[in-house]
């Protein structure tokens, strides 16, 4: 789960408004190579990773990308704060203002809304990690393009920081890829995949729930479908009956 800290990872203090720049910077909020895409991608890929290193790397970098998302949102917010609607319209944010006023909505530089089609979660560890490497390079290149478009040092400062983070993330994903490849290369296949047909099922109880007579299941209880609740069991609210816990009660 996530804990929020009431500070940005890198300070953002922009003194001069610039709505036209905000229109382009918002692509790193909701665009194809932006922080929202990055964090969703990494946090979704981590479930199917085979090694602890890969899971930890994806988890922690995905979390850091959420922090970066906040930084980009702050940049856009501060660049458009207090700008009258006529100026927003003149600078090309008329359509955005009509739909979202001063809100920060995940779109790319042309106003195309965010879509999950920007991310890929293949479930295959090598494909996922190589996609993450590409994503970090695309994000770095986008930041360089944004840095090229402005002279304002207050804006360049956080953009430089974010760009450097992408370089470091690339290195981390590369190392995770090395470790995953070493593990999968223990056999002489191109990519070793587990043989699901031969794996044992998750628990050795019958699939249908078997609630005996006299059992008392509270209103908000969370009984998994494979649970085997014996007679006279008294399950209070919010309880989560797992097969192992149920065995203990017996």
């Amino acid at each position, binding site marked *: 789960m996530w804990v929020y800290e009431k500070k940005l990872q*890198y300070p953002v203090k922009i003194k001069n408004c610039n709505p036209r720049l905000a229109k382009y910077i918002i692509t790193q909020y909701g665009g194809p190579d932006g922080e929202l895409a990055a964090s969703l991608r990494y946090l979704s890929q981590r479930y199917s990773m085979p*090694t602890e290193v890969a899971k930890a790397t994806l988890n922690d970098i995905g979390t850091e990308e959420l922090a970066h998302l906040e930084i980009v949102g702050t940049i856009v917010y501060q660049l458009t704060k207090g700008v009258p609607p006529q100026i927003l319209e003149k600078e090309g944010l008329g359509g955005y203002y009509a739909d979202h006023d001063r809100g920060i909505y995940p779109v790319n530089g042309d106003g195309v809304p965010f879509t999950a089609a920007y991310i890929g979660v293949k479930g295959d560890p090598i494909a996922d990690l*190589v996609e993450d*490497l590409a994503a970090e390079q695309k994000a770095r290149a986008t*930041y*360089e393009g944004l*840095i090229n478009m402005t002279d304002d040092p207050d804006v360049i400062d956080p953009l*430089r*920081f*974010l*760009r*450097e*983070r992408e*370089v*470091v993330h*690339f*290195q981390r*994903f*590369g*190392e995770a*890829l*090395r*470790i995953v*490849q*070493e*593990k999968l*290369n*223990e056999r002489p296949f*191109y990519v070793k995949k587990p043989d699901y047909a031969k794996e044992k099922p998750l628990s050795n109880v019958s699939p249908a729930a078997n609630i005996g007579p006299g059992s008392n299941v509270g209103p908000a209880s969370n009984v998994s479908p494979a649970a085997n609740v014996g007679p006279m069991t008294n399950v209070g609210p919010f309880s989560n009956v797992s097969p192992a816990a149920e065995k203990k009660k017996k």
Partner: protein
Amino acid sequence: MFGTNIMPEAYANIPSEVFAGSKAKEKAAAAQKISCHDFDMCKLQYYDPQPIVGARLAHAYVPFQCLCCLYPPLLGLKQGTIFPELDRPYGADPAYSYDG
């Protein structure tokens, strides 16, 4: 796990220097002070990546990083990384430009 030298098989092909921490010279220097305050020295002792042994066709490889020295925290925050060898600022090399 902490303090033992046991390596799981997954790491068997990766050079052990990577997991021993810094190279010997830097280790001695780092033993005296945890973070390196002489940033130019850090950049000079630019880490040469370990050669990749046992590379296979149709696989992608990124060299492992070895811990050398670290920027002090405030400088690290400003630069975007605490590792000098990963500090690649944008626009540092005027000779390298797509626009020519």
